[in-house]
């Protein structure tokens, strides 16, 4: 048999005879590419596929979502070519998701804006003129100075969507505080506000971390950790590893078969907003069948289950039994549609497997009374002993950066109370009611800002009721002057008076501090991989500039300086080599640090709780420093007590349990005790039941024959509103057909692919039907990423104004093949209604009607 070599020889001979075209004219690199002898590395280097030359590596941090994974950007000829995992990160362990890698698209988005833009036509008309930064900042500074001089700095409202770590400290803690406005909005309530509130009511501050590396069983209520999560890839890749390598069982309750449900051992469909019934029934089974594992019984010592903080374990169990008695599995079946025997079986399995990670996210939370679902889950984790233990539900740890605080003398900030919803609407607006801000401003009784500036935020697109958002943002009588800080011409920026072009996250500095899935904090930074394009600027630099113009220098001139100073001020980072080390390596963790578990068990030394200004609250049996609260005197503090002194939680020192004082579960935002509070006196005082309880969702109680419940969800390759300009992501996911169960579809004569109309009290959208058994009957599920009407040509087909945009030659613009179906945005349908306890936007409660428009 003649082999290829002989052919080649034949060819060579023939070529020398001038007869054949040999491979000599061929791509030389393909010929010379040798075979590497050693093992192949998983990263740390990168080569051009064209020239085979090595590229320059710049360690930095992703910002496609709040997870903010460390990563490495690779640069060739001054161009960011690729984003790769940071192999030295203990959080990501050298992994990244699709979104992270598509970050390259932000920098070279042909529709990113490069110059400050000043509106010239009517607001929203789309007529702009280019202004110099000087002009733009002078105008803002003048307006802000005027407000400050008039004694109303609070009429400058700053509203951010995603602002974390150093940017948050610089802008919020330093710049805005030095200026004197406390009218600062965020977006947590359209994210997971009620989850944080529930945690603040039970174990103190967020985040919760799930210890998949050490767990034996995973029970998931409505978290789609494989597709979207606040700590997505760092946690998700550990979950995948646990499921395959340790063959763990995982059970997922969800309205729809998410990818997480799909990778679980079992998907258990549940009706929207009824997870809480299942959770309570599981608690019922575990308590009534006396299945509480010994770890759970022991943990009860650190739980508050009755009004009396000193109750014995037996009393606590009795209280649990009494409270849970009505929540039987049969009752839960009637509400949730989950068979009672299934609930019993899973409850028993959970009780028998320790440790177990009990996890949740937006599924159970984004409903009326969503706080209760998360509190119930905390209870389930507590009684099974799965709180803050290896393998359980943990209090997450992140790095503690030190940073320059700016000028010492800061004025007392004024506040327009527009961020916490209407009076009495939300019991615990700890994380604001941001979805209601526009309504409150329009209503006007808390005053209206004269300058409304937003940063990394998309008020029009991201909140419910897009129509109203657009109306309000357009209305100069409601918001007389608006400034958008953004790299992109999105739906909201299009309605601004002034647009300040921001550098993308790949062109700027930050120190970063997201929590670690392995309970060991990791310090990391973001640095410019390429210089900011055009006239775009890091907003951190802009606020320094703005402060100078207002005659209130902040003590540093750039974000880079702020980050450098922070590196030198933070002991662990300084010891590692400070700023220079971080620039070279990107990430740092102290190899000596042990994972943090059982933080509540730390005993407080007597010197701490007997210190000056620390007083003992007899009723709550805890020590606190009255001076850190708003109490005017020690006497007042003692008289009012811990519970009723404003900001008393800030002075919390420790909880006396038995004869010891423990760190316990440190309160945050509310004056709860140092116990893990299953029983919440705070809830009781607001007129709710103190123990986690079921409250029916009003709109779902009397559904008409045609009514369906709208559920929204996220997919793995898009963030809610900010990634659709990334062509590599939008190519994968650009249309969001409505998932509808075959039974539900058949009743409406709808077949797969049909055009349908979805109507709610707020409006209607037209989209395609995806008829699939992967969703509960009676529900229509629409992801919330599509249907942009601005945000550039990849996202919407609508270009940014030509004279301001990058205008890079991008042949892919002519290859957009999804122009005929860019999906529909469900937020047009969803009213801005908050959870009455936590203020969370009730994304998944909307009642809609669905009808067929045209056959496929």
């Amino acid at each position, binding site marked *: *048999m*003649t*082999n*290829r*070599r002989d052919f080649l020889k034949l060819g060579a001979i023939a070529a020398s005879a001038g007869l054949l075209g040999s*491979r000599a*004219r*061929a*791509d030389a690199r*393909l010929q010379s*590419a*040798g*075979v*590497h*002898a*050693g093992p*192949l*590395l*998983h*990263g740390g*280097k990168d*080569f*051009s*596929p064209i020239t*085979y030359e090595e590229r320059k590596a710049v360690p930095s941090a992703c910002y496609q979502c709040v997870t903010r994974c460390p990563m490495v950007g690779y640069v060739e000829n001054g161009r960011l070519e690729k984003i*790769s*995992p940071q192999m030295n990160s203990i959080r990501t362990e*050298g*992994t*990244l*998701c*699709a979104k*992270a*890698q*598509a970050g390259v698209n932000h920098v070279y988005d042909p529709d990113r804006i490069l110059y400050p833009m000043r509106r010239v036509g009517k607001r929203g008309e789309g007529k702009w003129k280019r202004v110099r930064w000087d002009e733009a900042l002078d105008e803002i500074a003048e307006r802000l100075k005027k407000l400050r001089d008039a004694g109303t700095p609070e009429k400058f409202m700053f509203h951010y969507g995603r602002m974390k770590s150093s940017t948050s400290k610089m802008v919020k803690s330093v710049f805005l505080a030095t200026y004197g406005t406390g009218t600062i909005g965020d977006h947590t309530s359209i994210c997971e506000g009620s989850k944080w509130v529930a945690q603040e009511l039970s174990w103190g501050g967020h985040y919760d971390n799930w210890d998949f590396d050490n767990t034996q069983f995973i029970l998931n209520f409505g978290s789609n950790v*494989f597709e979207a999560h606040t700590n997505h890839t760092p946690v*998700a*890749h550990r979950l*995948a*590893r646990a*499921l*395959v390598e340790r063959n763990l069982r995982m059970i997922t309750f969800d309205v729809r078969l998410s*990818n997480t449900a*799909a990778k679980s051992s079992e*998907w258990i*469909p549940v009706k929207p907003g009824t997870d809480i019934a299942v959770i309570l029934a599981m608690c019922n089974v575990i308590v009534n069948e006396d299945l509480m594992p010994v770890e759970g019984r022991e943990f009860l010592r650190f739980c508050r289950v009755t009004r009396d903080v000193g109750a014995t374990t037996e009393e606590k169990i009795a209280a649990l039994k009494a409270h849970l008695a009505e929540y039987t599995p049969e009752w839960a079946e009637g509400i949730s549609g989950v068979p009672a025997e299934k609930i019993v079986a899973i409850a028993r399995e959970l009780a028998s497997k320790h440790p177990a990670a009990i996890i949740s996210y937006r599924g159970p939370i984004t409903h009326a009374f969503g706080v209760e679902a998360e509190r119930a889950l905390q209870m389930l984790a507590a009684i099974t002993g799965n709180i803050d233990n290896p393998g359980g539900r943990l209090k997450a740890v992140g790095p503690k950066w030190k940073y320059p605080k700016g000028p010492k003398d800061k004025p007392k900030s004024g506040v327009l109370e527009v961020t916490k919803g209407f009076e009495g609407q939300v019991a615990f607006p700890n994380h604001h009611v941001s979805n209601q801000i526009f309504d409150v401003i329009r209503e006007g009784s808390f005053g209206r800002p004269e300058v409304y500036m937003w940063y990394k935020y998309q008020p029009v697109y991201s909140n419910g009721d897009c129509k109203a958002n657009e109306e309000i943002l357009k209305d100069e009588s409601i918001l007389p002057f608006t400034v958008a800080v953004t790299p992109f011409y999105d739906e909201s920026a299009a309605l601004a008076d002034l647009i300040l072009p921001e550098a993308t996250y790949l062109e700027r500095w930050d120190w970063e501090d997201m929590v670690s899935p392995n309970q060991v904090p990791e310090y990391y930074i973001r640095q410019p991989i390429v210089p900011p394009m055009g006239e775009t600027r890091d907003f951190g630099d802009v606020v320094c500039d703005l402060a100078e113009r207002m005659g209130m220098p902040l003590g540093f001139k750039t974000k880079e300086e702020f980050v450098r100073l922070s590196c030198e001020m933070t002991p662990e980072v300084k010891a590692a080599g400070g700023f220079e080390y971080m620039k070279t390596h990107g990430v740092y963790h102290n190899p000596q640090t042990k994972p943090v578990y059982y933080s509540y068990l730390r005993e407080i030394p007597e010197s701490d709780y007997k210190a000056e200004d620390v007083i003992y609250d007899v009723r709550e049996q805890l020590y606190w420093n009255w001076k850190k609260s708003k109490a005017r005197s020690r006497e007042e503090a003692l008289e009012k007590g811990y519970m009723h002194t404003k900001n008393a939680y800030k002075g919390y020192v420790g909880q006396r349990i038995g004869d010891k004082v423990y760190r316990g579960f440190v309160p945050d935002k509310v004056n709860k005790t140092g116990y893990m509070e299953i029983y919440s006196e705070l809830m009781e005082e607001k007129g709710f039941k103190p123990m986690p309880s079921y409250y029916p969702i009003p709109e779902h109680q009397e559904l008409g024959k045609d009514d369906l419940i709208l559920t929204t969800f996220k997919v*793995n390759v898009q963030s809610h509103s900010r990634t659709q300009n990334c062509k*590599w*992501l939008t190519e*994968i*996911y650009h249309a969001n057909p409505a998932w509808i*169960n075959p039974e539900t579809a058949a009743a409406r004569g709808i077949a797969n692919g049909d055009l349908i109309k979805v109507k709610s009290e707020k409006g209607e959208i037209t989209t395609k039907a995806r008829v*699939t*058994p*992967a969703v509960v009957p009676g529900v229509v599920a629409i992801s919330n990423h599509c249907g942009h009407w601005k945000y550039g040509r990849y996202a919407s087909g609508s270009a940014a104004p030509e004279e301001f945009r990058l205008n890079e030659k991008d*042949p*892919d613009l002519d*290859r*957009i*093949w999804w122009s005929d179906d860019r999906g529909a945005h469900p937020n047009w349908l969803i009213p801005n209604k908050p959870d009455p306890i936590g203020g969370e936007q009730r994304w998944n409660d909307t009642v809609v009607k669905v009808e067929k428009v045209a056959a496929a």
Partner: protein
Amino acid sequence: MKDSNSKPDISRRAFLGGGAAVTGAGAAAALGGGVANSAVEGGAKKHYVMVIDARRCYGVQACTVACKAEYKVPLGENRSWVEEIEKGNYPNVTRSFLPRLCNHCDEPPCVPVCPTGATFKRDEDGIVVIDKDVCIGCKSCIQACPYDQRFLNEDTHTADKCDFCIHRVSQGLQPACVEACPSRARIFGDLNDPDSEVSRLIATNKVSVLRPGYGTEPNVYYIGADHTGENDHYAEFSYVDVKTNRRFAERR
């Protein structure tokens, strides 16, 4: 399905041989066959294969985008992607993920059809490559691939496909998709090395290859893959939906 690293013993259909002979390529057939095996016979150092552990894949598309970024693949085409297979009857519904890429077959149907020799299987490592300076763009190889892996690159105007990231692999790095996969579902290595992870995985797991009936002898092995096709009908359920997220979704 394969149970070990032994090659599946699938002979081509007799009439295919007949069809080939009609070309007058009977002579070539007598000479042929050497191309595929030469990587081993020629004393090559490596036999690169990829093992895809579908159990680990959670469909996050990191590989898809990593590959796009690596090669700036024009919109509308992919060198690698992840398919989703959803099937069942409510509430017993499953969804599984199937990462796809060139199989770098031992019997690559794309190589012999090439009229210029632009595409060939490298002796030294078994990677099937395309020489972009030689390809005339006749599209024969695109038609010949039973895995729809080849496409016409609108930028280079040549056939294009996965090349196991030869610029990385030849310089000591894992392929881009392997580096990118957050769940380590893609494992790449040398099958000639009995101690390599791929050798170990293939030896100790039930592995399968795609469309074994085509006799292509793929070098991409799957663990726990769902081979259901859109048109497969099962007695116990009627719903099968295969999503590829590619422009031409029906092609696999």
